[in-house]
């Protein structure tokens, strides 16, 4: 932020450059805003909280991991529909900060949702999930048909 001397605006003296100079002020202001603030705004605009998600696959199952620090187990929703896995949940404003003065709020509050197309068909009734150290791990066993099979070929 720079302090510039205030000058009385010339009401009568219209200048074609006036709009240009206000535009320049706007651009200056934009660059003075910490970039962090700017990207945070964009992130929220693009759909809020997007936790990092990893997807792994081995011969028997598909494993999905999501980084969800500081959640309550009951606030996490997992659903599977037509080979698409949806992870959703909500982090609520905590009461303990109600009367506090906040200096930094980088942690996301509110709802998140991630959807992932699974690379193989899975047994929907055998899906299991664990939540430990802030990481959600969903294990989805593959259907028998999806598992790779070794076919023995006899050569005569």
């Amino acid at each position: 932020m720079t302090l510039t001397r205030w000058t009385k605006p010339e009401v009568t003296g219209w200048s074609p450059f006036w709009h240009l100079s206000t535009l320049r002020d706007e651009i200056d202001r934009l660059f003075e805003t910490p970039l962090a603030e700017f990207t945070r705004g964009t992130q929220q605009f693009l759909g809020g909280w997007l936790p990092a998600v990893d997807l792994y696959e081995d011969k028997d199952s598909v494993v999905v991991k999501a980084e969800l620090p500081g959640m309550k187990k009951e606030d996490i929703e997992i659903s599977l529909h037509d080979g698409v896995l949806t992870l959703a949940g909500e982090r609520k404003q905590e009461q303990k900060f109600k009367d506090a003065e906040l200096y930094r709020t980088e942690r996301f509050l509110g709802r998140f949702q991630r959807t992932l197309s699974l690379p193989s068909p899975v047994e929907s009734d055998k899906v299991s999930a664990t939540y430990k150290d802030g990481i959600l791990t969903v294990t989805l066993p593959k259907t028998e048909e999806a598992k790779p099979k070794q076919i023995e070929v006899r050569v005569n």
Partner: protein
Amino acid sequence: MNTLVEKQSQCAPVKRVEENQYLMPAVNIAETKDTYVIEAEMPGVTRDHLEITLEDHTLTLTGHREPAPPPGEAVYVESKPASFRRIFDLEPTIDAGKITAQLEQGLLTLTLPKAERVKPRKIVVTD
């Protein structure tokens, strides 16, 4: 606001890989009547791999993450395997001896109580 000043002045709320390959955990900092509270997100960090040091009013939070063997072939990976680190300069009014820490589901919560107000002293001039 000079209560809890960060060592690195450019503290982006987005996770960013530092030069030394540390991720900056997202934090919330709040002040109540008698404490400061810092919450830092460190998913995947266990209690044994958490390191909190206080030296000359400099508080360093480090959460080490062991690269675990992947549960299969990676199809899609967004998470970064690096450890977390963030450094704060604490206000001298914080009672360093009474700082407490709690780690629950990858969220570190530090409670930093303020010291009892230093009472104004009367200085007597001696002959």
